[in-house]
């Protein structure tokens, strides 16, 4: 009965998580109760076994892959992409043309034509 009363307090005692009075109470009980002392020893054995579980090592490229994933995520932020595209269409609708644009060779497409729109958007996405 006494043993049942302590239950989870035994493992908390072992983990150093009991304060003052309760710690003393469990400690006094352990001095007189062989069953609880055995149980505590078995819990300690369980912890030792858990520490034996296999471990793995990270691959060499672990950090590099995270940083690469980060830049991929930055590139693909949907809001940024949407704003860039929206900006392109706004410029297109306003009939704005950049001087010295790398796509100047297409500047003779009629404004608001599909070809003009296509190359303006491609230019913005580059």
């Amino acid at each position, binding site marked *: 009965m006494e043993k049942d009363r302590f239950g*989870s307090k035994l*493992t908390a005692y072992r983990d150093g*998580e009991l304060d003052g009075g309760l710690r003393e109470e469990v400690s006094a009980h352990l001095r007189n109760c062989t069953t609880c002392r055995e149980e505590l020893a078995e819990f300690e054995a369980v912890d030792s076994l*858990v520490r034996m579980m296999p*471990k*793995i090592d990270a691959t060499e490229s672990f950090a590099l892959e995270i*940083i690469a994933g980060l830049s991929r995520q930055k590139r693909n932020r949907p809001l940024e992409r949407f704003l860039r595209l929206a900006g392109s269409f706004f410029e297109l609708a306003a009939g704005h043309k950049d001087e010295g644009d790398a796509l100047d060779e297409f500047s003779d497409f009629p404004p608001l034509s599909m070809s003009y729109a296509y190359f303006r958007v491609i230019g913005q996405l580059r």
Partner: protein
Amino acid sequence: MSDSAARGNTFEKTESEYELIKAVGAGDIVAFEMLIKRYRDPVLNFIFRYTGDRFGAEDIAQEVFLKVYLAASGFKPRGKVSTWIFKIAYNLSMNEVLRRSRFDRASASDELGPELQGPGDTGLKELAQEVMDSVGRLPEKQRAALLLRVDEDLSYAEIGNVLSTSIAGVESLLFRARENLRKMLIGKSKGMNSGKG
């Protein structure tokens, strides 16, 4: 190049985890690399031991650090950085375990099966594998609490923070986890010893 290496060494030796996470939040990649280096092994092995999936563990661990980077600027120093990182690791691992148990229950048990079978468990490797399997059979919160306590030495309050549970709840989880493992592992070895004698 050498400047960044020197800065890396400074972070490694002198910066507290709060200063490190602050620098990460400001977008400092050198600080981020230091943070990864500091927490990579414990996070990776927590995920591996919790999910039991050697190959998936690294993917989840990488996702953890990505989330850490993206959320670092909002980190509030109310608790330890390590506890916060383990909370992210636990949540992602738990999602993975739930996803797997929903869609892949049969194949997951098939994967573990052959390693459990076989007559001898005398070697350390076999014993370690058997412990891994027994831990894998614990209810997920008991398993997480046990790993955070035994492997990572987190306090009950910190474990409660990771698992969103009270300290009394953690006490109970840890007691039941150890009690279950005691029955699975110690009871079995006792039975085998008495059989031999």
